[in-house]
């Protein structure tokens, strides 16, 4: 497996307080090794999406430091190394499937994004929808396009915020296959999900967060041992109740 000394992601004392006073993350430390498949679990409002948004420069951090492969997260290099598939579908309504990928590649500095866009359209089974605008795609097709867009510029760290939320079983299996293949190629993956079986199936390491704090972090097996239970569901229930 691909590893290197510099962590793919390092958070030091990350704090985010929103303008309305809500403290979403408080003095949060986290280190994710390069090449890892890392899961982030927690209830709604735990701070998962805030953490991801901070890494991807989508919100203003109140305090702390975020490093991506050793570089400050708001630097141009660090930004080009991260690919994000957000929880909500946020596709440009004016662009077709091909344009969505090509323009994303352009924003991320690719000189000739066309061939890579074609490659991903084939990989994600969107050939028949190549020239269709995003609002006219089905829910599953939009979810595939969202993931394809996140991978377009070949990021070293891919962040997937609940990528299988609300998708049917077949698409979930398809997405798992894509994500596993990506990880096998050496890409670091940070996955948030509400599906515990998904985290157990895919992730090498899992962090449980609640109320903007890290509660526990280990492999699924290690968490079960630590909490003295036999199922990850019970780990989750115990951790969130403690």
């Amino acid at each position: 497996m691909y590893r290197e000394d510099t962590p793919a992601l390092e958070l030091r004392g990350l704090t985010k307080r929103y303008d309305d006073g809500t403290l979403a993350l408080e003095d949060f430390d986290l280190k994710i090794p390069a090449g890892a498949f890392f899961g982030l679990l927690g209830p709604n409002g735990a701070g998962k999406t805030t953490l991801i948004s901070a890494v991807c420069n989508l919100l203003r951090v109140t305090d702390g430091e975020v490093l991506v492969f050793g570089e400050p997260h708001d630097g141009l290099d660090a930004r080009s190394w991260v690919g994000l598939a957000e929880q909500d579908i946020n596709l440009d309504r004016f662009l077709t499937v091909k344009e969505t990928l090509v323009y994303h590649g352009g924003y991320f500095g690719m000189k000739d994004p066309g061939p890579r866009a074609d490659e991903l359209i084939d990989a994600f089974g969107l050939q028949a929808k190549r020239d269709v605008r995003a609002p006219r795609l089905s829910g599953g097709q939009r979810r595939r396009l969202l993931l394809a867009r996140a991978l377009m510029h070949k990021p070293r760290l891919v962040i997937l915020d609940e990528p299988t939320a609300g998708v049917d079983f077949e698409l979930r299996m398809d997405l798992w296959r894509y994500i596993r293949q990506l990880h096998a190629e050496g890409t670091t993956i940070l996955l948030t999900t509400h599906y515990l079986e998904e985290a157990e199936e895919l992730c090498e390491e899992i962090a449980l967060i609640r109320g903007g704090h890290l509660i526990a972090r280990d492999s699924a097996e290690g968490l079960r041992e630590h909490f003295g239970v036999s199922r990850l569901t019970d780990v989750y229930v115990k951790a969130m109740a403690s």
Partner: protein
Amino acid sequence: MVWLCKRETLRVSKLWTQTVLAPVVSSILFILVFGLSLGGRIKQVGGVDYEVFIVPGLITMGMVQAAYSNNASTIFQARFDRYVNDVLSAPMRPWQMSFGFTVGGVVRALAIGLALLVLAFFLVDVPVKHPFELALAMALGLVLFASLGLVVGIYAETFDHTSFIQNIVILPLTFVGGVFYSIDILPSPWQELSHFNPIFYLVNAVRYGFLGESDVSILLSLAVTAALAIPAYLWAQHLFTTGKRLKD
């Protein structure tokens, strides 16, 4: 940045019936209706035929409204649908983002201005007496209103907010900014009050470029427009640099 400029231009071209054709048709209707109906009664303003006199103001009005509304709606939609995140997370500098988003409004306004210029040339034979001053006035006006559109689109909570500024602020100020008349004909205090209307200076700078006629000095007109355009651009730039309202 080039790709963001391309995207903004693509949006304008994909919606060309709304973004270019509709404003051109409405401005031409103004020229035909006002020029033909009032032109028979007013004859000349400052030695210029009335139907020619109103053309610079109408071109200005069409262009600045397009620059404003294009940029207000493009950034508001991008925020509302959250695809602005694709740009905000990209390895682009803040000035590249604000420049890229500004380009769409400028391209749209230039397309409208060019179409109106060609049509007005054939309809009323409007001259261009000072092309340099005309280009400078247009450039400053477009920077002002394209930037203002970005700022309003970034602050807007609903689409109505962007329309409100257009319909309650920009449109009335344009109408009373001397598009259809010279302020010389206004009684006091309206004539003096007109000098507090920033669009009055832009309209007069453009009119000077076309006709060589203006209610105020061209230097003053350009200076006032520049004094508004530069802070407006810096304000838009500031919002991208700090992430205020974009990253909340």
